[in-house]
């Protein structure tokens, strides 16, 4: 009777196991739910259509953490930015074993490698971009963003053209900043629309960003969302393509050679980077859900869309070819929000 009343509870330990990520596949970074600590990493091999789930936990024997925001793969190593665990883990991209970690962040979002010994880490709730030395796994300095308060601080995705890194300031912000990688300082700021959510460079050396327009009754403002094209040389807006008020465009990305732009706005849309106007019809129509993540395979142009369903169960990934033909669909982890190609 004592054993019936007593200890059958277990806070499980997970023994590490051998993981192998074959081929040139796709890591899926699943955010999990804020404050649940249930972020996870998956790997999909397009050649075999096999999915491996929870590979970080299974390879290392401990949890990935709370809200895995993004991942960058460089030189056989994957750098996973775990936003609410305040850490970036580096793993071997072949076996997912940890090789090191960088701690000490406020709330990291994305990592951009300037060189082998310097990377920038954007953050939220901080008006500074951290400068890290990936070889020594430590923060070496900060880039302060001018005219930005800590409490509403936000720097997000980064794109490098030449010696300059451009970064969109997202939450409660409206700017693109230009950083000189030689001096690690912000040298210019460009005001765009309310809340630029993502940032890419196209084949023609132009920058593109989608501003989501804020939300109704926001004290920060509410306007028609728009797609902006920016000339990095003059650092000014060249063109502005407006959506409809109330639209929710997000997840701007390009194909491998940068000639086409893709984004989500209920449906999946695509446009040639040289096009003079927004398309009239979507490439892939919505399934009546909110698509949460999008990426395009730089090698073959396959499109991956993430459906987070209700954000409390494993999300589903749909894989299309560049002509919008469905090739595969599979389940990943909770709230799949980002992708990284191996």
């Amino acid at each position: 009777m004592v054993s019936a009343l007593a200890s059958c509870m277990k806070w499980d330990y997970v023994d590490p196991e051998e993981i192998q990520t074959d081929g040139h596949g796709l890591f899926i970074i699943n955010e999990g739910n804020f404050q649940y600590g249930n972020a996870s990493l998956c790997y999909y091999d397009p050649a075999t259509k096999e999915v491996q789930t929870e590979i970080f936990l299974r390879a290392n024997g401990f949890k990935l953490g709370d809200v895995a925001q993004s991942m960058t793969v460089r030189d056989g190593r994957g750098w996973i930015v775990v936003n609410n665990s305040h850490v970036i883990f580096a793993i071997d991209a072949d076996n997912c074993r940890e090789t090191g970690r960088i701690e000490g962040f406020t709330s990291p979002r994305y990592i951009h490698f300037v060189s082998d010994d310097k990377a920038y880490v954007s953050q939220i709730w901080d008006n500074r971009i951290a400068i890290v030395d990936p070889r020594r796994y430590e923060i070496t300095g900060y880039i302060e963003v001018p005219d930005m308060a800590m409490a509403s601080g936000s720097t997000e995705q980064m794109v490098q053209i030449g010696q300059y890194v451009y970064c969109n300031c997202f939450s409660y912000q409206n700017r693109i900043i230009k950083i000189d990688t030689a001096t690690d300082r912000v040298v210019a700021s460009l005001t765009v629309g309310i809340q630029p959510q993502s940032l890419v460079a196209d084949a023609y050396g132009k920058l593109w960003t989608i501003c989501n327009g804020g939300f109704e009754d926001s004290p920060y403002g509410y306007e028609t969302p728009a797609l902006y094209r920016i000339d990095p040389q003059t650092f000014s807006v060249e063109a502005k393509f407006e959506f409809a008020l109330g639209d929710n465009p997000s997840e701007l990305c390009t194909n491998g050679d940068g000639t086409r732009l893709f984004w989500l706005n209920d449906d999946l849309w695509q446009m040639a980077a040289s096009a003079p106007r927004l398309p009239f019809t979507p490439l892939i129509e919505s399934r009546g859900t909110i698509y949460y993540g999008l990426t395009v395979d730089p090698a073959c142009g396959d499109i991956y869309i993430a459906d987070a369903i209700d954000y409390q169960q494993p999300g589903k990934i749909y894989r299309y070819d560049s002509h919008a033909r469905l090739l595969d669909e599979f389940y990943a982890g909770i709230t799949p929000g980002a992708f990284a190609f191996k």
Partner: protein
Amino acid sequence: MRPYTLKLCLIFLCIVHCASCIAQRSLREVTVIGRRPMREIGVQKTRFDSLALKENVALSMADVLTYNSGIFVKSYGRATLSTVAFRGTSPSHTQVTWNGLNINSPMLGMTDFSTIPSYFVDNASLLHGSSSVGETGGGLGGLVRLGTAADAPDGFHGQYVQGIGSFSTFDEYLRLTFHNERWTSSTRVVYSSSPNDYKYTNHDKKVNIYDDNHNIVGQYHPTERNVSGAFKGFHALQEVYYDDQNGNRLGLNAWYINSNRELPILTTDYADTDFDNRQREQTLRTVLSWGHNRGRGWNTDIRGGYVYTALAYDYKRAVGGEGPMAVMTRSRSYVNTFFGRAEGNIYTRDRRWLFTANISAHQNLVRAHDKNIVTTDGNDAIVGYDKGRIDLSGAVSAKWQPNSRLGMSVVLRREMSGTKWAPIIPAFFIDGVISRKGNVMARASVSRNYRFPSLNDMYFMPGGNPDLKSESGFSYDAGISFDIGRSHVYALSGSVTWFDSYIDDWILWLPTTKGFFSPRNVKEVHAYGIETKAELSVQLRSDLLLDLNGSLSWTPSVNRGEPMTEADKSVGKQLPYVPRTSASLTGRLTWRTWSFLYKWAHYSRRFTMSSNESTLTGHLPPYYMSNIVLGKKIALRNVGLDFKLAVNNLFNEDYLSVLSRPMPGINFELFIGISI
């Protein structure tokens, strides 16, 4: 042995011997079903006795509910947010009243039971499902009815209890009472504090051991301390009652709370920066009441009150590890509530009919500033809302007891929130004596119920949805109970109730593509099951009494809505964080002035995913928890002493009850009480 020492021993033995002469607890009397109270025809109610409420001063109502009912209480330690799932519903589907005043937060729609010290409650009961309709609307799961009583011995009396526990925890309780024929005054004060920095082995994290070239050569799970889990809570309750000996009773209740709680970090947090993550609250709840009852076949109760709540949430981090802190979030919310309630009951002369009517009004005024931002032109802007809303609720009922075996009751309730009226809320109850031998009774009820969205649901910035519909529920239940015993030998009672509820337009907060959450009416839930209770008291010997009290609830709560997308696997599955089975058991052995209490609670595994998948990252195995309390009373001439030793997490379990929240191992608290 020296004479002086011998004298001391003799005195001690005398004290112990005399102590055995004081009245010990005796077997409860078995209720004989004659004329049953008409107010409770067909009602399914669980009453918490004073032993459960006054067990030790460190307990909150969350602990009382966990170990004395079949309700699932979700919390992650002392002074953490503690919410309930009553019959498989959400925390905002359980209404909570205190002396007639609804104390659910008008912003969130739910109650944090860790903020209610159990020593501040004199009577507490659960009204399950439909049984709540007579008192209030919106109780799709049920009602937790709390109240204080003018219960004090004649003259001046005082009680002080000091608790000293693990992790530098201190609990202090003081009560001063005065009572004579007309006046009763009671003052209660509680102060609790703890850094709450218990140690635990972190299964979710690993620390690396590096060689000189920064290669990882080893890893281990670190032993860590619970960080940012400190709490300080001060509660004061002042009550004054006046009885004019002519059927009128006036009452004043004023409850002040000053609480300061840090929010602990997750097991998966690698931050090494100084930070402050803290919630502070000041609340004053006052109720003024007048009741009239001269036993003439009618009675009335009119009460009114005022509640003020100020909530502050601050999140600060040091810039660059240590040093001055930068403010990340500074959130301030202010709630003013004006409340009024009137009730009347009238019996027919033959006492076969009882007609009741009650009406209540809560005017809530909420000013919530969620976040301070600085716009790019340097101006301050506030993200939040400033809204008022009146909630009216009124009911009439007719109860009929044609004979001593049968009773029936109809309740019709109408509610209004803001300017929206809910459809009529009807409820029908019936009960009957099946057999006088064994006091076997059957009861059944059916009702329709509605819950209005909370102010945050409608106006939270960003994401609030003013177009939300009310959640609605249809429920019915049927049960049987018995009560047998033999005077001074044993008393045994039990009940089994089956219930079935359908809740539509369940409000769920879902992320949007703009990066924030927004509520929608999306779910349809079928919550059903069986609740069982049993109580046994046995007088083993004239000075030895055994009490056992158990509850077991089986509560499947299933998503019956449409799939949100073609990929949705949640339809037909159990709701997240609602266990299918919850159980509790308390066993108390009282021998003269000694008592031994064993408490046990169990929840079946909880799914953290709506699809009920059980991954390595997100599953919670079944929960079993045992606590014991050993007590000793000593009565001196004018003073009573009471010693208690509480041992929590008796088997030193290494566990989680909420994902990524560490829990303490075995811990102790010693209480020393003195009463005059």
